[in-house]
């Protein structure tokens, strides 16, 4: 009934020691649920034994009851048969309940742990790992295991158990006939192993192409506006058709593989019957076995062949689950680069933010992004970071907020090294607001509130009002409760940015770090917003990565970052007089403004 979809790429295949380690760890992680796990295992043993007892009882009924014309024995067999059926039913039900309870609790635990570990990682981790891969770990990989638990694990256990038991029963009934069955059995086993391999590779191709096809489909839908704007529908349709047809071809290949296999299995089953009838009949004539035994064999054959088939399919599933677990454990084991020290203390509530001879290189970067940089920002001071593209402004800002740790040197707040502060106090003191607005699913209100989750509706509104944009959003038909839709498509480009800015107006930290985006706002709105931000900055330390002259001019001090170093520090006037990099930059900006 159920075909387990599973498969594992060669490079993901685990070796013996890895498998053993994964298993051991799963058992350790599942130990809180061991009660239900053992209960489930017990149920599996009972129901499987009951399945096997049935043909034995039939044999008894035929040989000792019917052929011996002993009605008592016959009725006894029937009574027992009924009893074990009832037993199998009860334990069958419990088996599902226990197994799923164990499995789902385990998966829930796994989800929470993996996500928590992902969240503890620093930004560097997210630089290294593509978003798509991380999402797949939390979804597809864990779901594979869920499927396995719901269907596969149960059958895997039962099937394995069934094959072993069935042989034991057969052997105890008649070793001669067991040998007869063993003529066919290897054919099935060999075919199953080959099928398992071939179907694994076919399955991987199918999975890959399904992914590809979904990707093309998704792109075609997401980009529909661009496609239509350039009248490229027909080309896109053709492109999709190509990927769709290649998916079909991979399906057909996997169908071919299963076709011969299932044909062979069905054929072998009947051949085994024919052998048991032929040779068994001869043995009956010789008086070696009873007719009842032959009948029991015929009936037992199916409980022998089905599990082998299932085992071969499940093997893939179990393997891919092990591979998935291995990857998930790797996430759990990743040590966060930016972590809380064991003896962390709360940062002082106010103080100077000091960067002392800091070196920083991004992973994979050949040259340092910051090279022996020192800077002291006084409590309440407003600093603007300026410099050419790629100079290291954002990097410096991120280090000042401990989104990364320096490779060398120290960043401290109020005299305490940021690495010795608790995470909680760090985010209470220093907040970074990236201004390119990433909007989350939900309403405008939810998105602003993200900056301070305990903010009331009134506070959210007040924050937007301070920016002077509340009226604008309230004019929308659903006001602040407008759903922003996927990534904010319901809003205009500038409106999206205003929502992100609303976050900056809602937070209330001692140190505010703003990485100014090049703007989608009209200068009028922008000036208004800037004026509001200006008020926001009063009384707190502010570090702004600036791209606009107006922002720069408001700063107490301007810090020029050039080529990973701080080259100039001073007020607008001072730096203009210096006639260095800043004065050139300021002139370029002015020119762009003037046209």
């Amino acid at each position, binding site marked *: 009934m159920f075909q387990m979809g599973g498969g594992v790429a060669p490079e993901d295949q685990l070796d013996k020691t890895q498998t053993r380690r994964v298993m051991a760890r799963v058992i350790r992680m599942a130990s809180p649920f061991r009660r239900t796990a053992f209960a489930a295992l017990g149920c599996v043993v009972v129901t499987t034994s009951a399945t096997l007892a*049935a043909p034995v*009882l039939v044999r008894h009924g035929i040989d000792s009851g*019917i052929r011996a014309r002993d009605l008592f024995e016959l009725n006894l067999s029937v009574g027992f048969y009924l009893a074990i*059926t009832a037993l199998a039913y009860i334990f*069958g039900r419990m088996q*599902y*309940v226990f197994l799923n*309870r164990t499995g789902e609790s385990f998966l*829930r635990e796994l989800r929470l742990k993996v*996500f928590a570990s*992902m969240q503890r990682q620093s*930004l560097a981790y997210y630089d290294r790992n*593509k978003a*798509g891969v991380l*999402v797949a770990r939390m*979804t597809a990989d864990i*779901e594979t295991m869920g499927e396995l638990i*719901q269907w596969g694990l149960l059958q895997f256990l039962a099937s394995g158990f069934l094959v072993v038991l069935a042989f034991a029963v057969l052997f105890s009934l008649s070793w001669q006939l067991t040998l007869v069955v063993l003529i066919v059995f290897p054919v099935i086993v060999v075919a199953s192993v080959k099928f398992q391999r071939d179907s694994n590779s076919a399955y991987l191709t199918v999975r890959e192409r399904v992914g590809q096809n979904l990707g093309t489909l998704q*792109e075609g839908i997401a*980009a529909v*506006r*661009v496609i*239509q704007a350039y009248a490229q529908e027909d080309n*896109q349709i053709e492109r*999709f058709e190509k990927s*769709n047809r290649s998916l079909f071809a991979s399906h057909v290949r996997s169908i*071919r593989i*299963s076709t011969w296999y299932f044909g062979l299995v069905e*054929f072998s089953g*009947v051949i085994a*019957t*024919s*052998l048991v*009838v*032929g040779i068994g*009949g*001869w043995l009956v*004539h010789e008086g070696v076995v009873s*007719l009842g035994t032959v*009948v029991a064999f015929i009936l037992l054959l199916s409980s022998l062949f089905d599990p082998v088939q299932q085992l071969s399919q499940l093997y893939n599933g179990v393997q891919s689950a092990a591979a998935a677990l291995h990857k998930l454990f790797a996430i759990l084991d990743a040590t966060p680069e930016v972590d809380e020290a064991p003896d962390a203390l709360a940062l002082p509530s106010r103080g100077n933010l000091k960067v002392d001879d800091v070196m920083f290189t991004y992973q994979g970067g050949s040259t340092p992004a910051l090279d022996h940089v020192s800077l002291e920002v006084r409590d309440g001071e407003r600093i603007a970071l300026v410099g050419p593209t790629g100079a290291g402004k954002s990097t410096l800002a991120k280090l000042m907020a401990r989104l990364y740790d320096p490779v060398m040197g120290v960043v401290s707040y109020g005299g305490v090294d940021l690495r010795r502060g608790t*995470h909680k106090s760090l985010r209470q003191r220093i907040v970074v*607001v990236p201004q390119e607005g990433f909007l989350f699913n939900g309403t405008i209100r939810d998105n602003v509130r993200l900056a301070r989750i305990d903010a009331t509706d009134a506070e959210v509104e007040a924050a937007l009002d301070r920016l002077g944009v509340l009226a*604008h959003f309230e*004019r929308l038909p659903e006001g602040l409760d407008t759903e922003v839709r*996927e990534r904010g*498509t319901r*809003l*205009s*480009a*500038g409106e999206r940015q205003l929502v992100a800015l609303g976050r900056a107006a809602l937070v209330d930290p001692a140190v505010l770090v703003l990485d100014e985006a*090049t703007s989608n*706002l*009209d200068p*009028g*709105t922008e000036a208004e917003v800037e004026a509001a931000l200006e008020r926001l900055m009063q009384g707190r330390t502010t570090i702004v990565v600036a*791209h606009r002259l107006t922002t720069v001019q408001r700063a107490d001090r301007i810090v020029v970052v050039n080529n990973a170093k701080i080259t100039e520090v001073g007020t607008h006037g001072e730096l203009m007089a210096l006639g260095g990099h800043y004065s050139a930059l300021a002139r370029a900006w002015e*020119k*762009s*403004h003037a*046209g």
Partner: protein
Amino acid sequence: MTSAPIGDKPIAVLGGTTVVELDPDAAASAKGEAEEQARAQRNLGWQLLWRALLDQRRALVFGVAIGITWTAAKVAVPQLTKAAIDRGIERNGPLLAWSLFIAGAGLATGLLTAGRRYLAFRESRWTETLLRERIFAHIQRLHVGYHDRTQTGQLMSRASSDLQQVQQFVVMIPITLSNVAQLFAVTLILVLTDWRLAIVALAPLPFINVASRRFSSRIHPAVLAVQNEQAQLASVVEESVSGVRVVKGLGTESVQFDKLRKEADDIRAVSLKAAGIRSRFLPAIDLLPSLGLIAVLGYGGHRVVNGDLSIGDLVAFNVYLTMLVWPLRNIGMMVALGQRAAAALVRVHEVLSTEPAVRSPKQPRSLPARHTSQPVGAVSFENVVFGYGDEHRVLNDLSVSIAPGESVAVVGATGSGKSTIVRLLLRFYDVDQGRITLDGIDLRKLDVHELRRNIGVVFEETFLFNDSVRNNIAFAKPDADLATVERAARLAGAHEFIMRLPEGYDTPIGERGFSLSGGQRQRVAIARAIVADPRVLVLDDATSAVDPSKEHEIRDAMRTVMEGRTTIVIAHRPGTIALADRIVLIDEGRVVAVGQHRELLDTSERYREVLAAWAVRDDTAAAEVPIAARTPVVGGE
């Protein structure tokens, strides 16, 4: 509110107004109508599938024929086994011959099974494949308004999971028909062998069918619920990962974690619910046949003892009963699968039957040819009224006309409708009132493709495809040669950084490729528009993310591109606005001022507000005084 006694006409009195409740007959007929409608929908869905299957009828009929032959062979095996036991073993008959007969039947069933499976699976996949292509093609042609309202995920599931339901149904067609045949054949054989025993043995079996059907229809919503919760969890993870810079910067990890915990709990809850349903049905379905087998052993055993039945018959009964288990389950499942497929087909049909609201007219007029002495590319908005479907009117009586070859800057506050104008010009939406013309022809009278090929837009949101830089730039003209692509890239100021990419023009970009900065992406998009070589070029805030000092270089190149074509620029930077011959200021959905930059600075207060023309002059004033109260400071720059 007082309710009337039973028997009277139900009347409710609400604050003095008498409200007669809905006439029950009318309510019933309304309900009947809804049902009628649902049935009609289902019929349309089935017709869709029927027509698809008709095209594959040869292979399908062949598959069914093989399936029924397979049934015959399969049913023969227990008959042969029985004969072998009775005549061969019990009566010392020719054992070898019987064994060979059984083996022969085995060979036949093996081959036939293979054939049936192959045909069934291949044909069902083919149906799915073709339907998916139809859906994709249709989606590509549906108007943008439809896409605004429909989430990507929804359309994705039409073309994936819904079609999977259809495939699962189609694949079952041949086996179900042979199952039905098998059911009849076996029942007939059993009844002919011993009708009394047959009745007793078969009695529990219909329950299998009923139980399977119930199970399938109960488990389906449960499975959907699980999938739904999984999707919700996925979207929490997705946004936490994509928005990690916001999450980390604000320190809101706990918010995301709480969201995730809720989803993880939900998944666990619905999964356990599904497991509960399985536990209620599956063991029962597994064990019901045992009741028949017990009956055969007990009642049949007695009849053998009495000499009414042979042992061979008894064994055959056993084997036949087990043979009925799968067909009964399958038929039960098939009913549920059919219901599911029907629902999926209705949804698919809904998409396929949605007519694109924006379509080319039957006899489109064609645009005047380019490269004649007469310059082309005149755009005119005449009293345009437009809203996105809600009561909010975005454009309200907007009129503007742009001469061929002219360049115009559109300026306005955030949310004033600038991008909307672009979307209307592309005919993503049709205007509610008024009209828009290109070279004097109403857009609605033009072939949509021709219109769009003549308008090149750089959108404010840059969408790049998962493809090489080169293919992204050559998007509008896939067969453009490298020289053309390079020329466009140079003009857009993109050539330099492209050459520094790891594989130059062949570097894959887009979501899954090399990540470019916002400014770089915009420059690729500009190059894409240049390759299209449109008669009207539209730049919607196309250089907002480009560094101001870099923008300067692009601006010079843009002058070359703009030569000889109409250009509409939406921009906020005075430098960019200055590219245009004329400036159109929009506010509250209409044009409030038209003129040159300097002219507007002098005459339009709103223009000065939008461009914050005072900001450079007097910062402190801008910081302290609310907008309305500001006295604009005007001066030459």
